[in-house]
Protein backbone atom coordinates (compact mmCIF):
# COMPACT_ATOMS: atom_id res chain seq x y z
CA UNK A 1 0.00 0.00 0.00
CA UNK A 2 1.34 3.43 -0.77
CA UNK A 3 1.55 6.11 1.89
CA UNK A 4 -1.46 7.97 0.57
CA UNK A 5 -3.72 4.92 0.80
CA UNK A 6 -2.94 4.22 4.44
CA UNK A 7 -5.76 4.66 6.88
CA UNK A 8 -5.24 7.54 9.28
CA UNK A 9 -6.00 6.45 12.85
CA UNK A 10 -5.08 9.58 14.81
CA UNK A 11 -4.99 13.25 13.93
CA UNK A 12 -3.82 15.86 16.42
CA UNK A 13 -4.38 19.46 15.48
CA UNK A 14 -2.90 22.54 17.13
CA UNK A 15 -2.96 20.87 20.53
CA UNK A 16 -2.23 23.03 23.56
CA UNK A 17 -1.72 22.06 27.17
CA UNK A 18 -1.02 24.97 29.49
CA UNK A 19 -0.48 24.22 33.19
CA UNK A 20 -0.95 26.93 35.80
CA UNK A 21 2.21 27.52 37.89
CA UNK A 22 3.14 29.93 40.63
CA UNK A 23 6.12 32.17 40.05
CA UNK A 24 7.80 35.39 41.11
CA UNK A 25 9.72 36.16 44.28
CA UNK A 26 6.86 35.39 46.61
CA UNK A 27 5.48 32.59 44.44
CA UNK A 28 2.31 34.59 44.06
CA UNK A 29 2.14 35.49 40.42
CA UNK A 30 0.09 33.20 38.28
CA UNK A 31 2.03 32.01 35.23
CA UNK A 32 1.49 29.37 32.61
CA UNK A 33 3.71 26.46 31.73
CA UNK A 34 3.06 25.92 28.03
CA UNK A 35 3.95 22.23 27.97
CA UNK A 36 2.28 21.84 24.56
CA UNK A 37 1.91 24.90 22.44
CA UNK A 38 0.40 23.92 19.12
CA UNK A 39 1.21 20.33 18.22
CA UNK A 40 -0.14 18.80 15.02
CA UNK A 41 0.51 15.29 13.83
CA UNK A 42 -1.03 12.36 12.03
CA UNK A 43 -0.59 8.65 12.64
CA UNK A 44 -1.46 5.89 10.17
CA UNK A 45 -2.87 2.52 11.14
CA UNK A 46 -0.21 -0.09 11.91
CA UNK A 47 2.49 2.55 11.91
CA UNK A 48 4.96 3.75 14.54
CA UNK A 49 5.55 7.44 15.06
CA UNK A 50 8.72 8.01 17.10
CA UNK A 51 8.89 11.12 19.28
CA UNK A 52 12.22 12.57 20.30
CA UNK A 53 13.08 15.80 22.05
CA UNK A 54 14.73 17.66 24.85
CA UNK A 55 13.61 16.60 28.30
CA UNK A 56 10.71 18.72 29.40
CA UNK A 57 9.64 19.53 25.84
CA UNK A 58 6.23 17.93 26.38
CA UNK A 59 6.52 14.38 25.07
CA UNK A 60 4.84 12.72 28.06
CA UNK A 61 2.28 15.50 28.22
CA UNK A 62 1.40 14.82 24.58
CA UNK A 63 0.99 11.10 25.34
CA UNK A 64 -1.15 11.84 28.37
CA UNK A 65 -3.37 14.18 26.37
CA UNK A 66 -3.94 11.54 23.70
CA UNK A 67 -4.98 8.93 26.27
CA UNK A 68 -6.84 11.79 27.96
CA UNK A 69 -5.11 11.49 31.33
CA UNK A 70 -4.75 15.24 30.70
CA UNK A 71 -7.53 17.42 29.40
CA UNK A 72 -5.94 19.66 26.80
CA UNK A 73 -6.36 23.41 27.01
CA UNK A 74 -7.14 23.76 23.30
CA UNK A 75 -6.88 21.96 19.99
CA UNK A 76 -8.22 18.75 18.61
CA UNK A 77 -7.51 15.02 19.00
CA UNK A 78 -9.38 12.88 16.51
CA UNK A 79 -9.23 9.12 16.90
CA UNK A 80 -10.70 7.23 13.94
CA UNK A 81 -12.61 10.40 13.11
CA UNK A 82 -14.04 10.97 16.61
CA UNK A 83 -13.18 14.12 18.52
CA UNK A 84 -11.77 13.21 21.98
CA UNK A 85 -10.32 16.47 23.27
CA UNK A 86 -13.43 17.73 25.03
CA UNK A 87 -15.17 14.49 26.00
CA UNK A 88 -16.11 13.88 29.63
CA UNK A 89 -14.80 10.83 31.51
CA UNK A 90 -18.06 9.05 30.74
CA UNK A 91 -17.94 10.02 27.09
CA UNK A 92 -14.41 8.70 26.88
CA UNK A 93 -15.21 5.22 28.10
CA UNK A 94 -15.78 3.66 24.69
CA UNK A 95 -12.40 4.95 23.52
CA UNK A 96 -10.36 4.10 26.60
CA UNK A 97 -9.94 0.47 25.63
CA UNK A 98 -8.68 1.46 22.18
CA UNK A 99 -5.97 3.85 23.33
CA UNK A 100 -3.51 2.59 25.93
CA UNK A 101 -0.26 3.78 27.42
CA UNK A 102 2.93 2.00 28.53
CA UNK A 103 5.17 3.86 30.97
CA UNK A 104 8.91 3.96 31.50
CA UNK A 105 8.67 2.74 35.03
CA UNK A 106 6.35 -0.24 35.06
CA UNK A 107 6.85 -0.56 38.84
CA UNK A 108 5.27 2.77 39.56
CA UNK A 109 2.34 1.95 37.34
CA UNK A 110 1.65 -1.49 38.84
CA UNK A 111 -0.26 -1.88 42.10
CA UNK A 112 2.23 -3.72 44.29
CA UNK A 113 -0.37 -5.35 46.54
CA UNK A 114 -2.17 -7.13 43.72
CA UNK A 115 -1.09 -10.30 42.00
CA UNK A 116 -0.23 -10.13 38.31
CA UNK A 117 -3.41 -12.12 37.66
CA UNK A 118 -5.53 -9.48 39.41
CA UNK A 119 -3.74 -6.62 37.70
CA UNK A 120 -4.32 -8.11 34.27
CA UNK A 121 -7.90 -9.08 35.03
CA UNK A 122 -8.84 -5.56 36.06
CA UNK A 123 -9.33 -4.05 32.57
CA UNK A 124 -11.76 -6.88 31.72
CA UNK A 125 -13.71 -6.26 34.92
CA UNK A 126 -13.88 -2.50 34.32
CA UNK A 127 -15.27 -3.09 30.85
CA UNK A 128 -17.59 -5.86 32.04
CA UNK A 129 -16.04 -8.56 29.89
CA UNK A 130 -16.57 -12.28 30.67
CA UNK A 131 -17.06 -14.10 33.96
CA UNK A 132 -14.24 -14.86 36.36
CA UNK A 133 -13.29 -18.08 34.62
CA UNK A 134 -13.27 -16.55 31.14
CA UNK A 135 -11.23 -13.62 32.36
CA UNK A 136 -8.66 -15.94 33.94
CA UNK A 137 -8.33 -17.68 30.61
CA UNK A 138 -7.72 -14.35 28.92
CA UNK A 139 -5.06 -13.52 31.50
CA UNK A 140 -3.29 -16.80 30.75
CA UNK A 141 -3.39 -16.01 27.02
CA UNK A 142 -1.98 -12.55 27.66
CA UNK A 143 0.89 -13.90 29.72
CA UNK A 144 1.77 -16.27 26.95
CA UNK A 145 1.58 -13.53 24.36
CA UNK A 146 4.13 -11.38 26.18
CA UNK A 147 6.40 -14.31 27.00
CA UNK A 148 5.76 -14.77 30.71
CA UNK A 149 5.25 -18.14 32.43
CA UNK A 150 1.63 -18.94 33.32
CA UNK A 151 2.63 -19.20 37.00
CA UNK A 152 3.23 -15.46 36.93
CA UNK A 153 -0.49 -14.85 37.54
CA UNK A 154 -0.16 -15.90 41.19
CA UNK A 155 2.87 -13.73 41.89
CA UNK A 156 3.41 -10.07 42.84
CA UNK A 157 5.12 -7.29 40.85
CA UNK A 158 8.15 -7.07 43.16
CA UNK A 159 9.03 -10.67 42.35
CA UNK A 160 9.85 -9.74 38.76
CA UNK A 161 12.86 -8.16 37.08
CA UNK A 162 12.60 -4.84 35.25
CA UNK A 163 12.23 -6.49 31.86
CA UNK A 164 9.54 -8.85 33.12
CA UNK A 165 7.66 -5.99 34.74
CA UNK A 166 7.72 -4.16 31.43
CA UNK A 167 6.21 -7.29 29.86
CA UNK A 168 3.44 -7.08 32.47
CA UNK A 169 2.92 -3.39 31.60
CA UNK A 170 2.66 -4.35 27.94
CA UNK A 171 0.27 -7.21 28.72
CA UNK A 172 -2.03 -4.83 30.56
CA UNK A 173 -1.89 -2.29 27.75
CA UNK A 174 -2.82 -4.83 25.05
CA UNK A 175 -5.41 -6.69 27.15
CA UNK A 176 -8.43 -5.14 25.46
CA UNK A 177 -7.10 -5.28 21.90
CA UNK A 178 -6.33 -1.58 21.59
CA UNK A 179 -5.78 0.15 18.26
CA UNK A 180 -3.22 2.63 19.50
CA UNK A 181 -0.55 2.30 22.19
CA UNK A 182 1.49 5.22 23.51
CA UNK A 183 4.87 3.86 24.59
CA UNK A 184 6.50 6.44 26.89
CA UNK A 185 10.17 5.47 27.17
CA UNK A 186 9.32 1.79 27.57
CA UNK A 187 12.90 0.54 27.35
CA UNK A 188 14.87 3.41 28.87
CA UNK A 189 15.33 1.67 32.20
CA UNK A 190 16.31 -1.72 30.81
CA UNK A 191 19.73 -3.12 30.05
CA UNK A 192 20.48 -3.63 26.40
CA UNK A 193 19.92 -7.37 26.22
CA UNK A 194 16.48 -7.01 27.83
CA UNK A 195 15.82 -3.91 25.73
CA UNK A 196 16.25 -5.91 22.54
CA UNK A 197 13.79 -8.55 23.82
CA UNK A 198 11.16 -5.92 24.58
CA UNK A 199 11.67 -4.17 21.23
CA UNK A 200 11.28 -7.51 19.45
CA UNK A 201 8.09 -8.13 21.43
CA UNK A 202 6.66 -4.73 20.52
CA UNK A 203 7.42 -5.27 16.83
CA UNK A 204 5.85 -8.77 16.93
CA UNK A 205 2.70 -7.47 18.65
CA UNK A 206 2.41 -4.63 16.18
CA UNK A 207 2.43 -7.05 13.24
CA UNK A 208 0.13 -9.53 14.93
CA UNK A 209 -2.47 -7.04 16.18
CA UNK A 210 -1.98 -4.28 13.59
CA UNK A 211 -1.21 -1.85 16.41
CA UNK A 212 -0.30 1.77 15.90
CA UNK A 213 2.40 3.10 18.20
CA UNK A 214 3.54 6.45 19.39
CA UNK A 215 7.00 5.65 20.69
CA UNK A 216 8.72 8.19 22.94
CA UNK A 217 12.44 7.76 23.64
CA UNK A 218 15.78 9.54 23.89
CA UNK A 219 17.87 6.80 22.34
CA UNK A 220 17.89 7.64 18.65
CA UNK A 221 19.17 4.25 17.55
CA UNK A 222 16.17 2.68 19.30
CA UNK A 223 13.77 5.22 17.79
CA UNK A 224 15.21 4.71 14.33
CA UNK A 225 14.90 0.96 14.74
CA UNK A 226 11.21 0.94 15.63
CA UNK A 227 9.74 4.00 13.89
CA UNK A 228 8.25 4.46 10.43
CA UNK A 229 8.06 8.19 10.93
CA UNK A 230 9.74 10.44 13.47
CA UNK A 231 8.68 13.73 15.05
CA UNK A 232 11.30 15.94 16.69
CA UNK A 233 9.91 18.12 19.50
CA UNK A 234 11.33 21.28 20.97
CA UNK A 235 9.69 23.31 23.72
CA UNK A 236 6.10 22.25 23.28
CA UNK A 237 6.14 22.07 19.49
CA UNK A 238 7.02 19.63 16.76
CA UNK A 239 9.85 21.22 14.81
CA UNK A 240 10.49 18.51 12.24
CA UNK A 241 8.63 15.40 11.08
CA UNK A 242 9.40 12.95 8.29
CA UNK A 243 9.95 9.27 7.60
CA UNK A 244 12.67 7.75 9.79
CA UNK A 245 14.91 7.33 6.81
CA UNK A 246 14.48 10.92 5.66
CA UNK A 247 15.08 12.41 9.13
CA UNK A 248 18.48 10.77 9.39
CA UNK A 249 19.45 11.17 5.73
CA UNK A 250 18.29 14.71 5.28
CA UNK A 251 17.75 16.51 8.60
CA UNK A 252 16.83 20.14 7.98
CA UNK A 253 16.20 21.68 11.40
CA UNK A 254 19.27 22.81 13.33
CA UNK A 255 18.03 21.05 16.47
CA UNK A 256 17.59 17.78 14.60
CA UNK A 257 21.14 18.14 13.29
CA UNK A 258 22.44 18.78 16.81
CA UNK A 259 20.57 15.74 18.10
CA UNK A 260 21.96 13.47 15.42
CA UNK A 261 25.48 14.75 15.96
CA UNK A 262 25.20 14.06 19.70
CA UNK A 263 24.23 10.39 19.39
CA UNK A 264 26.76 8.42 21.42
CA UNK A 265 28.26 5.76 19.18
CA UNK A 266 29.17 2.44 20.84
CA UNK A 267 32.62 2.40 19.28
CA UNK A 268 35.43 4.06 21.23
CA UNK A 269 37.51 4.68 18.11
CA UNK A 270 34.81 6.75 16.49
CA UNK A 271 34.80 9.87 18.64
CA UNK A 272 33.11 12.41 16.48
CA UNK A 273 32.81 16.11 16.08
CA UNK A 274 29.81 17.31 17.98
CA UNK A 275 27.56 20.24 17.68
CA UNK A 276 27.45 21.07 21.40
CA UNK A 277 24.54 23.42 21.81
CA UNK A 278 25.20 26.53 23.84
CA UNK A 279 22.90 28.44 26.10
CA UNK A 280 20.01 27.60 28.33
CA UNK A 281 17.10 25.52 27.27
CA UNK A 282 14.31 28.06 27.13
CA UNK A 283 11.57 27.52 29.67
CA UNK A 284 8.01 26.57 28.77
CA UNK A 285 7.06 29.07 31.46
CA UNK A 286 6.96 32.32 29.50
CA UNK A 287 8.52 30.84 26.37
CA UNK A 288 10.30 33.16 23.93
CA UNK A 289 8.08 35.21 21.69
CA UNK A 290 9.54 34.12 18.35
CA UNK A 291 11.33 30.93 17.37
CA UNK A 292 12.18 28.98 20.53
CA UNK A 293 15.41 27.61 19.12
CA UNK A 294 16.82 30.92 17.81
CA UNK A 295 18.86 31.75 20.92
CA UNK A 296 20.70 28.41 20.82
CA UNK A 297 21.15 28.16 17.09
CA UNK A 298 24.43 28.78 15.29
CA UNK A 299 22.52 30.09 12.29
CA UNK A 300 22.25 33.89 12.11
CA UNK A 301 18.85 35.42 12.75
CA UNK A 302 18.09 38.71 10.97
CA UNK A 303 16.69 41.32 13.39
CA UNK A 304 13.29 41.44 11.71
CA UNK A 305 12.88 37.71 12.51
CA UNK A 306 13.80 37.98 16.20
CA UNK A 307 10.25 37.94 17.50
CA UNK A 308 8.69 36.11 14.60
CA UNK A 309 7.79 32.46 15.00
CA UNK A 310 8.74 29.98 12.31
CA UNK A 311 6.18 28.36 10.07
CA UNK A 312 5.66 24.58 10.19
CA UNK A 313 5.64 23.68 6.54
CA UNK A 314 5.77 20.64 4.28
CA UNK A 315 8.95 21.22 2.29
CA UNK A 316 9.08 17.85 0.55
CA UNK A 317 6.46 15.08 0.39
CA UNK A 318 5.69 14.20 4.02
CA UNK A 319 8.73 16.12 5.28
CA UNK A 320 7.63 18.91 7.63
CA UNK A 321 9.89 21.43 9.26
CA UNK A 322 9.72 24.67 11.23
CA UNK A 323 10.95 27.21 8.69
CA UNK A 324 12.84 30.13 10.16
CA UNK A 325 16.25 31.63 9.39
CA UNK A 326 17.56 30.36 12.74
CA UNK A 327 16.38 26.79 12.23
CA UNK A 328 16.91 25.88 8.58
CA UNK A 329 19.97 26.71 6.52
CA UNK A 330 19.05 28.64 3.35
CA UNK A 331 15.44 28.65 4.48
CA UNK A 332 14.49 30.91 1.55
CA UNK A 333 14.75 28.03 -0.86
CA UNK A 334 11.78 26.36 0.86
CA UNK A 335 9.55 29.41 1.23
Amino acid at each position, binding site marked *: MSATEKKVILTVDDLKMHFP*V*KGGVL*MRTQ*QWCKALDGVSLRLNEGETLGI*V*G*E*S*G*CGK*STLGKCIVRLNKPTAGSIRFEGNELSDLSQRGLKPYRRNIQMIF*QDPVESLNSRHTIGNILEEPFIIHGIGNHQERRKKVAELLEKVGLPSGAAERFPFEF*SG*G*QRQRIGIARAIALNPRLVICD*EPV*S*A*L*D*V*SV*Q*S*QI*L*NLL*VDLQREMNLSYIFIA*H*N*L*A*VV*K*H*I*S*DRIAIMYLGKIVEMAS*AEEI*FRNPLHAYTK*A*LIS*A*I*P*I*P*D*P*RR*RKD*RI*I*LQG*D*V*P*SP*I*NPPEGCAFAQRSWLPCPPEWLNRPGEFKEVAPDHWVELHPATVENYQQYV
Partner: protein
Amino acid sequence: MSQEEAWERSIDMLRKVGIPAPEIRVGEFPHQLSGGMRQRVVIAMALALKPAIVIADEPTTALDVTIQAQILELMKSLQAEMGMAIILITHDLGVIAETCDDVVVMYAGRVAERGTVNDIFENPLHLYTRGLLDSIPRMEGTPKERLQTIPGMVPGLADLPVGARFAPRSPHPGAAAYMASKEYQTVRPELVEVEPGHWVEDCEVVRT
Protein backbone atom coordinates in the same frame (compact mmCIF):
# COMPACT_ATOMS: atom_id res chain seq x y z
CA MET B 1 27.08 29.49 54.46
CA SER B 2 23.95 31.46 55.21
CA GLN B 3 20.60 30.35 54.01
CA GLU B 4 20.51 33.11 51.38
CA GLU B 5 23.94 32.06 50.10
CA ALA B 6 22.87 28.43 49.95
CA TRP B 7 19.78 29.49 48.00
CA GLU B 8 21.92 31.51 45.55
CA ARG B 9 24.39 28.61 45.17
CA SER B 10 21.47 26.28 44.49
CA ILE B 11 20.30 28.56 41.70
CA ASP B 12 23.86 28.61 40.28
CA MET B 13 24.12 24.84 40.32
CA LEU B 14 20.72 24.48 38.65
CA ARG B 15 21.86 26.85 35.92
CA LYS B 16 25.13 24.92 35.55
CA VAL B 17 23.29 21.66 34.83
CA GLY B 18 21.06 23.36 32.29
CA ILE B 19 17.78 23.97 34.11
CA PRO B 20 15.92 26.83 32.42
CA ALA B 21 14.58 29.68 34.56
CA PRO B 22 16.47 28.44 37.65
CA GLU B 23 15.21 31.35 39.80
CA ILE B 24 11.67 30.04 39.34
CA ARG B 25 12.45 26.32 39.34
CA VAL B 26 14.34 26.52 42.64
CA GLY B 27 11.05 27.19 44.39
CA GLU B 28 9.17 24.36 42.74
CA PHE B 29 8.39 20.85 43.88
CA PRO B 30 9.78 17.73 42.19
CA HIS B 31 6.45 16.67 40.69
CA GLN B 32 6.31 19.94 38.75
CA LEU B 33 9.50 19.10 36.86
CA SER B 34 9.89 16.77 33.91
CA GLY B 35 11.75 13.48 34.44
CA GLY B 36 14.90 14.85 32.87
CA MET B 37 14.83 18.03 34.90
CA ARG B 38 14.58 16.02 38.11
CA GLN B 39 17.66 14.09 37.02
CA ARG B 40 19.60 17.28 36.45
CA VAL B 41 18.63 18.52 39.91
CA VAL B 42 20.11 15.36 41.41
CA ILE B 43 23.34 15.85 39.46
CA ALA B 44 23.53 19.42 40.72
CA MET B 45 23.17 18.18 44.31
CA ALA B 46 25.92 15.57 43.88
CA LEU B 47 28.39 18.02 42.35
CA ALA B 48 27.65 20.94 44.68
CA LEU B 49 30.06 19.85 47.40
CA LYS B 50 32.96 19.07 45.02
CA PRO B 51 33.47 15.44 46.07
CA ALA B 52 36.60 13.24 45.48
CA ILE B 53 34.63 10.37 44.02
CA VAL B 54 31.32 10.62 42.23
CA ILE B 55 29.29 7.50 41.71
CA ALA B 56 26.95 8.39 38.90
CA ASP B 57 24.21 5.79 38.55
CA GLU B 58 22.58 6.27 35.14
CA PRO B 59 23.11 10.04 35.30
CA THR B 60 21.87 10.85 31.82
CA THR B 61 19.35 8.13 31.06
CA ALA B 62 16.35 10.43 31.06
CA LEU B 63 18.00 13.21 29.06
CA ASP B 64 17.93 13.90 25.36
CA VAL B 65 21.27 13.33 23.67
CA THR B 66 22.19 17.01 23.30
CA ILE B 67 21.75 17.58 27.05
CA GLN B 68 23.41 14.22 27.72
CA ALA B 69 26.44 15.39 25.75
CA GLN B 70 26.43 18.66 27.74
CA ILE B 71 26.19 16.90 31.09
CA LEU B 72 28.94 14.42 30.25
CA GLU B 73 31.10 17.34 29.08
CA LEU B 74 30.27 19.14 32.32
CA MET B 75 31.27 16.12 34.40
CA LYS B 76 34.48 15.72 32.39
CA SER B 77 35.44 19.36 32.78
CA LEU B 78 34.71 19.28 36.53
CA GLN B 79 36.81 16.13 36.66
CA ALA B 80 39.73 17.85 34.90
CA GLU B 81 39.36 20.81 37.25
CA MET B 82 38.96 18.96 40.55
CA GLY B 83 40.61 15.64 39.78
CA MET B 84 37.73 13.59 41.11
CA ALA B 85 37.25 10.00 40.05
CA ILE B 86 33.97 9.04 38.42
CA ILE B 87 32.30 5.68 38.52
CA LEU B 88 29.69 5.77 35.79
CA ILE B 89 27.02 3.10 35.98
CA THR B 90 24.98 2.82 32.80
CA HIS B 91 23.20 0.58 30.32
CA ASP B 92 24.20 2.83 27.46
CA LEU B 93 27.19 1.32 25.69
CA GLY B 94 27.47 4.43 23.52
CA VAL B 95 27.95 6.62 26.59
CA ILE B 96 30.59 4.22 27.91
CA ALA B 97 32.45 4.14 24.60
CA GLU B 98 32.53 7.91 24.50
CA THR B 99 33.32 8.83 28.11
CA CYS B 100 35.11 6.07 29.99
CA ASP B 101 38.76 5.04 30.26
CA ASP B 102 38.19 1.66 31.87
CA VAL B 103 35.17 -0.62 31.91
CA VAL B 104 33.95 -3.30 34.30
CA VAL B 105 31.22 -5.60 32.93
CA MET B 106 29.14 -7.13 35.71
CA TYR B 107 26.81 -10.10 35.55
CA ALA B 108 24.62 -11.38 38.40
CA GLY B 109 26.64 -9.71 41.12
CA ARG B 110 30.11 -10.57 39.83
CA VAL B 111 32.68 -9.05 37.52
CA ALA B 112 32.61 -10.89 34.21
CA GLU B 113 35.26 -8.86 32.45
CA ARG B 114 37.41 -5.80 33.01
CA GLY B 115 39.69 -3.80 30.74
CA THR B 116 40.27 -0.57 28.90
CA VAL B 117 37.39 0.78 26.87
CA ASN B 118 39.13 -0.36 23.68
CA ASP B 119 39.68 -3.88 25.07
CA ILE B 120 36.02 -4.26 25.88
CA PHE B 121 34.60 -2.97 22.62
CA GLU B 122 37.16 -4.38 20.23
CA ASN B 123 38.11 -7.62 21.85
CA PRO B 124 35.35 -8.75 24.21
CA LEU B 125 36.43 -11.97 25.95
CA HIS B 126 33.28 -12.82 27.90
CA LEU B 127 30.19 -14.18 26.17
CA TYR B 128 27.99 -11.82 28.18
CA THR B 129 29.94 -8.79 26.95
CA ARG B 130 29.68 -10.11 23.40
CA GLY B 131 25.94 -10.68 23.86
CA LEU B 132 25.43 -7.10 25.05
CA LEU B 133 27.37 -5.63 22.14
CA ASP B 134 25.42 -7.77 19.68
CA SER B 135 21.99 -6.83 20.99
CA ILE B 136 22.10 -3.03 20.62
CA PRO B 137 20.16 -1.56 17.69
CA ARG B 138 22.70 0.11 15.42
CA MET B 139 22.17 3.33 13.49
CA GLU B 140 23.08 1.48 10.31
CA GLY B 141 20.72 -1.47 11.03
CA THR B 142 17.50 -2.36 9.19
CA PRO B 143 14.32 -0.98 10.82
CA LYS B 144 12.17 -3.45 12.77
CA GLU B 145 14.58 -6.25 12.00
CA ARG B 146 14.78 -8.88 14.74
CA LEU B 147 17.40 -7.81 17.27
CA GLN B 148 19.76 -10.35 18.75
CA THR B 149 19.00 -11.31 22.31
CA ILE B 150 20.79 -13.31 24.95
CA PRO B 151 18.75 -16.48 25.50
CA GLY B 152 17.40 -17.10 29.00
CA MET B 153 17.13 -14.74 31.93
CA VAL B 154 19.33 -13.31 34.64
CA PRO B 155 19.25 -15.86 37.49
CA GLY B 156 17.26 -14.97 40.59
CA LEU B 157 19.46 -13.94 43.50
CA ALA B 158 18.18 -16.90 45.52
CA ASP B 159 19.52 -19.67 43.27
CA LEU B 160 22.96 -18.49 42.26
CA PRO B 161 25.53 -21.18 41.57
CA VAL B 162 29.06 -21.10 42.98
CA GLY B 163 30.46 -21.59 39.48
CA ALA B 164 30.21 -19.32 36.45
CA ARG B 165 26.86 -17.59 36.68
CA PHE B 166 26.47 -17.05 32.96
CA ALA B 167 26.86 -20.77 32.16
CA PRO B 168 23.09 -21.53 31.93
CA ARG B 169 22.81 -18.96 29.10
CA SER B 170 26.00 -19.94 27.32
CA PRO B 171 25.80 -21.40 23.81
CA HIS B 172 29.17 -23.09 24.40
CA PRO B 173 28.97 -26.85 23.58
CA GLY B 174 30.57 -27.69 26.93
CA ALA B 175 28.10 -25.69 29.00
CA ALA B 176 25.79 -28.60 29.90
CA ALA B 177 28.64 -30.83 30.99
CA TYR B 178 30.14 -28.02 33.04
CA MET B 179 26.85 -27.40 34.82
CA ALA B 180 26.57 -31.10 35.66
CA SER B 181 30.07 -31.12 37.11
CA LYS B 182 31.14 -30.88 40.72
CA GLU B 183 33.27 -27.90 39.72
CA TYR B 184 30.12 -25.87 38.98
CA GLN B 185 28.81 -26.60 42.48
CA THR B 186 32.01 -25.83 44.32
CA VAL B 187 34.54 -23.66 42.46
CA ARG B 188 34.15 -19.95 41.88
CA PRO B 189 36.13 -18.94 38.76
CA GLU B 190 38.84 -16.35 39.36
CA LEU B 191 39.52 -13.43 37.06
CA VAL B 192 42.58 -14.01 34.82
CA GLU B 193 44.63 -11.36 33.09
CA VAL B 194 44.61 -12.39 29.45
CA GLU B 195 46.53 -9.38 28.20
CA PRO B 196 47.93 -6.52 30.27
CA GLY B 197 45.04 -4.88 32.09
CA HIS B 198 42.38 -7.05 30.42
CA TRP B 199 40.78 -9.51 32.85
CA VAL B 200 38.07 -12.10 32.32
CA GLU B 201 36.30 -14.77 34.33
CA ASP B 202 38.45 -17.89 34.04
CA CYS B 203 35.91 -20.41 32.80
CA GLU B 204 36.03 -21.79 29.30
CA VAL B 205 32.29 -22.14 28.74
CA VAL B 206 31.54 -18.44 29.26
CA ARG B 207 34.45 -17.15 27.16
CA THR B 208 34.32 -16.09 23.55
